[in-house]
């Protein structure tokens, strides 16, 4: 179904135009700037809700479609639409952006108008990535994301921000330009830039393999997968809290989304041929990066590595499908893997955002991210400790929280494919609990370790609102994931069916 008004365009352009207004308002009256930014982000979120309420979950068709010619000479269109895969991610984006705006309320004193504007523009561009159905439109949004993020890390980041942000930019740029060449190649094969036309495009195995590798470069860097993950810890550590939240909660998801929208359906045979590669990289991310996280001294770095491990689950879930389809003794479970990956993406969006915000709360007070500088925080910040422990549990995959649902589904699907995959994947339950809870133990519990900690004040109402809304989301998704799963069921079923058919 579709609405009477161009809802996706509004959700894309409202924050961008609002962001430009915020930018224009300057820094003479920072409070006006902040309220304007908050207003724009809330309005965008409210306007994006009809995407969910008006969504028809019974079909895998694209909905809320808009299609206008953009560059007729190349048959490039302004073609937007969402299905069950992209719609939840759009909502995640609009929701998290509000929290980011609130989280930067007092902390950002240097050029707040540029800070808020960067996040609003970022929001519109990210929604554009999820909603684009034209490959070139997708690519434009995909690359345009880099500019605000580059600025955000570079201006408001930590001491090594310049190194981190240039590394971030070049890494992702490197990954994506080869995708561009692949897209142009497919344009000449199919005569159109429609992503859905690419899905039905016949390609031989050599072409598929090359295109798959081009996509893998782009998406693996974004996710990020081992071994191209090294930009992420740097970027996360140096980014301001808001930047880390957006990076972890949404930008990483764009990599996962890319696998579902491009790699799997466009090059199913190459994905099948190279599934060992991706599954291997995912399992290394889960196990090895889990160990790496264990030894981190810096809280943000620890959460960054934990993100990589959790995203390993996402890619594992997506590619395990090929092993399940290939195994004739198993009749179902393929859908489960992809669904698990999707649930994990949304859930990780909430949990990682919350974890980074928790670290942000501490950092704003003590200006340190080192675990060793804290200890006994619970004695002075009981409310904060409550939230932090809750999110840590969710991060470790405690049943009842959203973190459990996705991991459980992926592990279950892995069992159908190969017993050993499941065993390796399940180590995350131990490792995840180990690194997260050990950090919480050292930071939150115990005696008050220093005068700095003793002087900490508990979270204020603004911080409480942010953390509480995330806690609610984590809990709701953990206790009752059915609404999310139902929404994407038809689309994922269609996708799995599509990739089961060889293109050769």
């Amino acid at each position, binding site marked *: 179904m579709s609405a009477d008004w161009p809802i996706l365009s509004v959700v894309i352009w409202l924050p961008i135009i609002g962001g430009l207004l915020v930018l224009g308002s300057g820094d003479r009256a920072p409070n006006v700037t902040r309220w304007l930014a908050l207003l724009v982000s809330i309005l965008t979120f409210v306007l994006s809700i009809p995407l969910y309420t008006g969504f028809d979950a019974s079909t895998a068709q694209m909905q809320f479609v808009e299609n206008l010619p953009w560059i007729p*000479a190349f048959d490039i269109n302004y073609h937007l639409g969402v299905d069950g895969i992209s719609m939840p991610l759009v909502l995640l984006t609009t929701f998290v952006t509000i929290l980011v705006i609130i989280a930067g309320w007092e902390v950002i004193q240097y050029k707040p108008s*540029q800070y808020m504007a960067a996040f609003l523009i970022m929001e519109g561009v990210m929604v554009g990535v999820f909603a684009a159905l034209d490959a070139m439109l997708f690519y434009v949004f995909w*690359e345009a994301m880099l500019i605000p993020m580059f600025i955000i890390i570079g201006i408001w980041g930590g001491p090594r921000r310049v190194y981190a942000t*240039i590394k971030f930019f070049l890494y992702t740029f490197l990954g994506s330009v*080869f995708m561009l*060449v692949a897209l142009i190649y497919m344009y*000449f094969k199919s005569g159109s830039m429609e992503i859905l036309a690419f899905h039905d495009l016949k390609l031989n195995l050599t072409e598929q393999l090359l295109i798959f590798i081009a996509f893998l470069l782009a998406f693996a860097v974004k996710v990020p997968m081992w071994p191209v993950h090294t930009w992420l810890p740097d970027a996360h550590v140096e980014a301001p809290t808001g930047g880390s939240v957006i990076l972890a909660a949404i930008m990483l998801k764009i990599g996962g989304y890319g696998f579902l929208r491009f790699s799997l359906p466009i090059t199913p045979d190459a994905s099948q041929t190279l599934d060992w590669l991706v599954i291997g990289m995912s399992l290394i991310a889960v196990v090895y990066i889990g160990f790496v996280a264990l030894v981190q001294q810096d809280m943000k770095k620890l959460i960054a590595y934990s993100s990589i491990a959790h995203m390993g689950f996402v890619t594992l879930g997506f590619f395990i499908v090929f092993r399940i389809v290939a195994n004739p003794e198993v009749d179902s479970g393929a859908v489960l893997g992809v669904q698990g990956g999707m649930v994990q993406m949304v859930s990780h969006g909430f949990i990682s955002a919350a974890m980074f915000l928790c670290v942000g709360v501490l950092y704003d007070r003590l200006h340190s991210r080192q675990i060793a500088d804290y200890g006994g925080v619970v004695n002075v910040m009981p409310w904060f400790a409550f939230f932090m422990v809750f999110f840590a549990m969710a991060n470790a995959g405690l049943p009842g929280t959203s973190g459990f649902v996705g991991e459980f589904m992926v592990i279950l699907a892995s069992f159908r494919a190969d017993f050993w995959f499941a065993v390796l994947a399940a180590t995350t339950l131990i490792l995840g609990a180990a690194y997260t809870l050990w950090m919480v133990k050292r930071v939150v519990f115990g005696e008050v370790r220093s005068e700095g900690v003793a002087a900490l004040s508990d979270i204020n109402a603004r911080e409480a609102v942010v953390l509480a809304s995330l806690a609610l989301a984590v809990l709701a998704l953990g206790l009752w994931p059915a609404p999310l799963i139902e929404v994407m069921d038809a689309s994922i079923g269609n996708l799995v069916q599509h990739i089961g058919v060889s293109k050769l």
Partner: protein
Amino acid sequence: MQYDLTSLQPVLPELFLLGAACLVLLVDLFLSPRTRMVGYGLSLMALLGTIALVAWVAGPERETLFAGSFVRDPVADVLKIALLSIGIFALAYGRGYLLGQGIYRGEYFILALFALLGMMIMASAGSFLTLYLGLELLALSVYALVAFDRDSLKGAEAAMKYFVLGALASGMLLYGISMLYGATGSLIFAEVAEAIGSGEVDETVLVFGLVFVVIGIAFKFGAVPFHMWVPDVYHGAPTAVTLFLGSAPKIAAFALALRLLVDGAGSLSAHWADMLTILAVLSLAIGNVVAIAQSNLKRMLAYSTISHVGFIFLGFIAANDKGYSAALFYTVVYALTAAGGFGLLAILSRRGFDAENLHDLKGLNERSPWLAGMMLLILFSMAGVPPTVGFFAKLFVLEAVVSVDKVWLAGVAVFFSIIGAFYYLRAVKMMYFDKPIDDAAIEASLDSRMAFSVNGVAMLLFGLFPAGLFEVCRAAFAG
């Protein structure tokens, strides 16, 4: 032969510009220091008038004049309008800079007008002779412009180098032309093309001549390995001249390549496409890599120009209308972008201070967020990051290259774009992430600020709506 005055209509814009330039030259003699801005105003009006005339005589058909020596076709119209518009930007940036540096003289505008006239003649050239005349008019005006600050040693050295190497390049070009003329027996491109196409001409002589023609073109574009003059001349010339030199003549060089290679030697495309491939790959590689090592912004942009020339050549390599229109789009966009990039240097300069180093950009976001924002768009456009227009310029060229099954060439091009992104990012980093080392207020004149704003916003607008400009470029080759 009988001449009817109305038959001169297609050449009216050139005649008008010639008259206007002579008028400005005369008027300038009688201007006192108090009224010297009149020269500037007259020059701007001359350019606007010429644009109007070009638009008036424009049309989809092809007209020839003077026995085929002069051609007015849609490509020529597009090229001329682009040239003249870039010229307006150059003059607007240049005035404030020259005043600030104390070298304001009417000759700047007069020489620029004559250079533009030369470029227009190149754009409309129908024979080797017209082309060469236009080229020399451009070259001689520009040599003088480079030495415009006559007390500057750097400027004199640059002009000398430019003159010697430029003369050498012209010599190469002439030698190549003489071969083609000798083999085909005509100076008119249409007849040359016909002779070559008939297959009765000795191909060895043709290809031998073609090599020299391509070398001449490569010199004028500044493509590797004929690029040595570019950084020195860009560096040595006053910024106002560099920005003129770095923008509009690229469009003229495009016209040179188009008229010689496509109109004249179109059926030899298999030969020249291979030569251009070598030049393009080398330019992309050397331009992007060496730019990283530059600390002088003018030199950095010079090497960046070299790499962009590689991209323009890629469009020619496709050797079809799609490729030419992509190359035309790229050239026009690049000229506009380059004018903005150098324009910022002109804006940042003031009395006793000539901004030309990368670190002069430091902390620009604190000094002027607006200027920094515009420069951000210009730099990302040069790097080819969407949603700026530079991305689409690269995209169209890459599409043309892939369409002739040269995917590897597209791969090479994007690989070097990544390397290129680094030094543009470094400039952005200086503007946004570093503290200013110079807190002096920016004393830019209103006209240069306006030009810069239009320039920066154009990067975004053409990026969001590239279809219009591209349609113009495509229609130019549709006929």
